[in-house]
């Protein structure tokens, strides 16, 4: 990466080229490439190197090329990896279900309320992620309104049967972690969906109606396919950060809901087992890239992303 950046920056347009302006786009790329080289590629190298070192923090680390750390980390923490992917997928699906109607309404029906609704979607970002997650502790706590409602309606029994809660408490459960993840990443789902749906030409829907399509058929054959870029962007923006998140599971979960981000945090900061933490980070990275790759291919929008 660093070499690339230098090569690109250091090579003006060859004399053979007809115009002198050809180097301009490359020069424009340079700041971004440098940024990536320093703050992305270089840390990646360090991380990669760290995963292959052996030793401890007191006596120092030596690079031994110990690739065995990868299967070791994987066999020890695969449940956490799977759990993280599962929670992130649940939060993504829940987010999509919640966000789609809202985004559609905002984009097509809200009229002059559009701006206000958009501001409301973004407003939570004015407080920190941590504060918002801590607020969920209060929202879901025993004796709170939400807790009362799920108890009087019997919904809590359903959640218990589904294994999302235990013993009738909402907080510190699978349900709380998934709800927190869904909430925290919802705006990342709404905004791309809104952007895609906002561009939707209402005349296409009128045409569908003229051709005797029902509401469902219009959605199925016109609206949804045209919004697919927004769906793909929204799901990626939700799924990827949600997989690595460790705040929601730490603040809203219990000892059975630990996600991979928490494990990496613990290995880096407490156990000081840097190689294993680095290896786990890479495993997570590869898993996400693979899954996202398959997803994008299946969604048939490869040319878009």
């Amino acid at each position: 990466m660093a070499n690339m950046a230098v090569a690109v920056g250091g090579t003006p347009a060859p004399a053979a080229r007809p115009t002198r302006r050809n180097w301009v786009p490359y020069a424009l790329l340079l700041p971004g490439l440098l940024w990536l080289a320093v703050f992305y590629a270089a840390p990646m190298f360090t991380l990669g190197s760290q995963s292959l070192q052996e030793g401890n923090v007191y006596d120092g680390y030596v690079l031994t090329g110990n690739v065995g750390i990868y299967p070791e980390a994987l066999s020890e923490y695969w449940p956490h990896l799977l759990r993280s992917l599962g929670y992130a997928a649940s939060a993504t699906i829940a987010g999509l279900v919640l966000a789609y109607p809202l985004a559609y309404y905002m984009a097509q029906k809200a009229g002059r309320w559009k701006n206000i609704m958009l501001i409301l979607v973004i407003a939570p970002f004015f407080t920190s992620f941590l504060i918002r997650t801590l607020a969920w502790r209060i929202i879901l706590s025993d004796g709170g309104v939400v807790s009362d409602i799920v108890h009087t309606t019997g919904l809590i029994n359903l959640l218990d049967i589904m294994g999302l809660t235990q013993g009738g408490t909402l907080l510190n459960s699978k349900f709380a972690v998934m709800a927190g993840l869904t909430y925290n990443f919802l705006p990342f789902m709404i905004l791309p969906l809104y952007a895609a749906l906002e561009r939707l030409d209402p005349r296409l829907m009128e045409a569908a109606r003229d051709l005797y399509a029902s509401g469902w058929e219009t959605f199925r054959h016109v609206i949804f396919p045209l919004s697919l870029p927004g769906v793909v962007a929204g799901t990626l923006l939700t799924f990827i950060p949600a997989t690595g998140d460790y705040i929601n599971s730490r603040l809203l979960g219990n000892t059975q809901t630990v996600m991979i981000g928490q494990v990496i945090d613990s290995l880096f900061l407490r156990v000081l087992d840097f190689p294993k933490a680095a290896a786990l980070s890479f495993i997570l990275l590869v898993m996400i890239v693979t899954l996202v790759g398959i997803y994008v291919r299946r969604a048939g929008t490869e040319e878009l992303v």
Partner: protein
Amino acid sequence: MSSNPDLNSLAFRAALGRGLVSRRTAMLGMAGLGVAALSACGSAGRNQGSNGTATGGASAEDLSDSEKVVNWSNWPEYIDVDDDGNRPSIDAFAAATGIAVNYTEDYNDNDEFYAKVRPLLEAGQDTGRDVWCSTDWMVARLIRQGFVQELDYDNIPNGSNVVDSLSDVEFDPGRKFSLPWQSGFAGIAWNPASTGGKRIESIDQLLNDPAIKGRVTLLTEMRDTVGLILLELGKDITSFTAEDFDEALAVIQDAKDRGQLQGFTGNEYTQPLASGDIAACIAWTGDVVQLQFDNPDLGYALPPKGFTIWSDNFVIPNMAKHKKNAELLINHYYDPEVMAEVAAWVNYIPPVQGTTEALVALDPELAENELIVPTDEVLSRAQVFRGLTDAEESDFTARFQSIVVG
């Protein structure tokens, strides 16, 4: 904001940046550059003899006389604050010596703080701090690694006021490198509203009572959690073996598997304990005394089979630029009158002789609280977790953490 036509492409660019393309490209680039760059990395550790032969670390030129300032990092809510938000004991120090104190509450967690300063200390650089307060075992590690400087007692004449029980400790014989700031016990706290009025007074009850199932938290601080459980098992925490440690871990694992535990916490247990989301937990004395001001019903018990006592200690890191000022600051707090002011606010156990008498004058009721001024009988049941070797520390921490995040 709303009808910006570029929003769509912006969203995609964001996806691009976070998702596939950039990562794939970056990975290819990495593979291309190969192992050569990797092998350039690696790091040297520094252990100055593992058996207490530490000699103290590197010092920088002391600017104390020209720069009248001292940078002190401490735990949150760990000093006296008056109604106007001022810190009277610090202001008094500044008024008396003309030295300004930059007091920063950025010490939230021993491990986290260590992770933050270690690279600087290892590289022999100034951490930007002249003094901070680390827990016993972290002080042991800092001394072992030669990351802290010897104190100059010529600048700390009040240092002789340190209470006898803490004047000579295993990890720092003769208190060459550290002096205690506050001490406290780890015991059991409960919220009667959430336990159905039940008192939770032993570790056995904490880990087994079905009335509090799923509403129990333990501390992420290994020495307190494992220490209390070892004591419950009848072990001596000043001389336990690796087998004893395993036995204690098995007890925690069992409680976890049965769903008795809600989780492991640092300081953040206080709010949920007050609200009743946590029914009972392992807690630190000062926190609970403070919580009891608002909710006198909260219960606190020192387990009958013994409990842990810890101290947070002043240390001066290597390359500190204002070592003498830091020592004068420590000296200031070793004046019993000053320490009494702090104790009245933070509600932990002051380590300075004469503080009790000063506290009686300041607030007689507090001076009767055995969690702040413990009786000899209480102190005799308090134990200190023994020092660990490097290898033990790595091994024990890894195994304890694998339960915490398991």
